[in-house]
């Protein structure tokens, strides 16, 4: 039998994640590909807690916890240290949430991308500051409720487009992914591992707690985000070569995605129609960029 998901399990059980945590699934896949010759650095985010309290750890590879805004440079520093010591084959992976990436970590990410440091940056995107209790980030989509965007004043404005920002640095590889499509995610992790220079993988990782969804819907939501085109799956090589990795023949209406989540339930028909229009427009823009 041909296996599309590596059999090896690096991550150990006993972590502290919530039921149905998408970020934990993302890590499991990530470590399957990156393997034991890998060092992780994790800033403040859910995974800073999920890994477990001192002196325990769940990831089973060396892990350096770091400050919120520093995942990218911490990975660059670790990589430089290993290079200086001749340990050039070790993979150095920054593993951060959307707040630590889209907001507070932007300067360091841009710096590492511009220098083309040989690191892989993986942002598991649960679309808000979930570890501090569901506050909006610049990855929170238009229309969503969070504790700092209450229903009366829900998040307005588009989600920041991280892949486009990173692609504009002309880095070798940047891509979206979804834990609902593990084979695609595995391919991308493999490509990142095998590519030298700066790589960023933006993986959608639903959060049942913050999205007000049942834990059993994590994978379903990760698929529906792709099937409704609100989170298209594509990659950009060298900042110019766009490839759509998962083609959606007939996109589903956004209500299919929203109906499993409490964070959008306040939206009225006209607001949903507006969001649908924006999704379709953004998708058309993306199609024009495909190589």
């Amino acid at each position, binding site marked *: 039998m041909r296996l599309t998901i590596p059999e090896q399990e690096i991550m150990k059980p006993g972590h502290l994640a919530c039921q149905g945590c998408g970020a934990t699934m993302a890590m499991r896949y990530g470590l399957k590909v990156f393997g034991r010759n890998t060092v992780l650095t994790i800033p403040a985010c859910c995974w800073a807690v999920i890994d477990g309290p001192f002196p325990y750890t769940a990831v089973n590879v*060396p892990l350096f916890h770091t400050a919120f805004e520093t995942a990218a440079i911490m990975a660059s520093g670790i990589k430089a240290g290993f290079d200086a*010591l001749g340990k050039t084959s070790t993979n150095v992976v920054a593993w951060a949430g959307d707040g630590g990436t889209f907001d507070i970590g932007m300067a360091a990410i841009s710096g590492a991308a511009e220098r083309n440091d040989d690191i892989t940056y993986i942002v598991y995107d649960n679309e808000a500051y979930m570890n501090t209790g569901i506050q909006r980030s610049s990855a929170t989509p238009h229309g969503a409720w969070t504790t700092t965007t209450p229903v009366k004043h829900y998040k307005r404005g588009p989600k920041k487009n991280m892949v486009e920002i990173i692609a504009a640095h002309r880095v070798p590889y940047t891509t979206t992914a979804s834990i609902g499509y593990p084979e695609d995610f595995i391919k991308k992790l493999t490509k990142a591992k095998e590519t030298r220079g700066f790589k960023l993988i933006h993986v959608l990782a639903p959060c049942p707690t913050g999205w007000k969804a049942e834990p059993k819907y994590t994978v379903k939501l990760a698929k529906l985000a792709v099937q409704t085109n609100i989170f298209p799956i594509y990659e950009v090589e060298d900042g110019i070569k766009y490839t759509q990795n998962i083609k959606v023949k007939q996109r589903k209406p956004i209500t299919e995605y929203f109906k499993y989540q409490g964070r959008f339930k306040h939206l009225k028909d006209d607001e949903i129609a507006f969001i649908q229009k924006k999704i379709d427009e953004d998708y058309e823009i993306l199609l024009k960029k495909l190589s």
Partner: protein
Amino acid sequence: MKMTMMGNYAASWGAQLSRVQVIAAYPITPQTLIVEKLSEIVADGELDAEFIKVESEHSAMSGCIGASAAGARAYTATSAQGLALMHEMLHWAALARLPIVLTNVNRAMAPGWSIWADQNDSLSQRDTGLMHIFASSSQDILDSTVLAYKIGEQVLLPTLISFDAFFLSHTMEVVDMPPIEDVDKFLPPYNPEYKLDVNDPRSFGALTSEEHYYEFRYKMQEAMDQAINIIKKEGKEFEKLTGRYYDLIHPYRCEDADLILVTSGTIAETTNVAVDELREEGKKVGNLKIRIIRPYPKQDILNVIKNCKKIAVIDRNISCGYHGIFAQELKSALYNETNIPVWGYLAGIGGRDVKIENIKEIADDTLKSDKPEDLIWKGVKL
């Protein structure tokens, strides 16, 4: 080999002689020359190091932390605003127990924009857990860099080496460059017991409950206490190698002094000259240079000042709402131990020049006064 060089270049060569393996740095006046020179040294192949040209000082310190955690010897340099931006990561470096060396050219904090000498930048980092040296000559800068790695790598604490903007950073002085072979004998390669190692996977800095955190701080304090003896031991080893001895404090003509001036940085060097002149005038004045403020050399200070009648501290810094920081530190060391009165003077803040005659005036004022004061604004124009 004797060479003439600016204080900044003494820092660069100190890093080169220490064979630093990773440099992460960002430009800021008046520090920039340090990392410019290091860029050349690395580009010319005179130092085998990775150089990360980071996008901020926050990242400069973070990059050093990553490199040091990986097991490499790491170095950076900054000034004022840059040091303030690093603040979060100074705590990180110290609590992660990584023996990084950071050079800071003491420069006044903005606003108003100033590039001139002032110690408020580095003294604002006093409680981050770094050992903190105030160098007072170019030779001191170079030698302190080598010593800081030797000491820091034993006690697992980072070190901040500060020195005055322009008065030292851009002033040419003669520096004796020890041969690198001698430095190699003194400073072996960095090989920490705990580091990021794929064959021994560990988590560093994980979620820590109240069951453990308190003890982490205890261990840091223990390391600071141990550092006092190690600084002295390595100072003596270094003296065997170079003939130059470095201690936590450097008293000058204090043995029989009625008045001891307490100083740091370049003001300390000027004060030595002032003391000679005062002595010629028949005044029994000494100068106690504080070279290292963390760990604080309380016992050494008490031993030096025990027989004097008065102490005057000169601070090129202020903790607004209280007074000069060296004066605060000294008074806290004296409390419960002695009743010698202390006068606290401010001078040189924002780079205003402190001349020999200013120091002599401080000495004369103190000798004449019979009422100690916490805060005397020398030369303030109102």
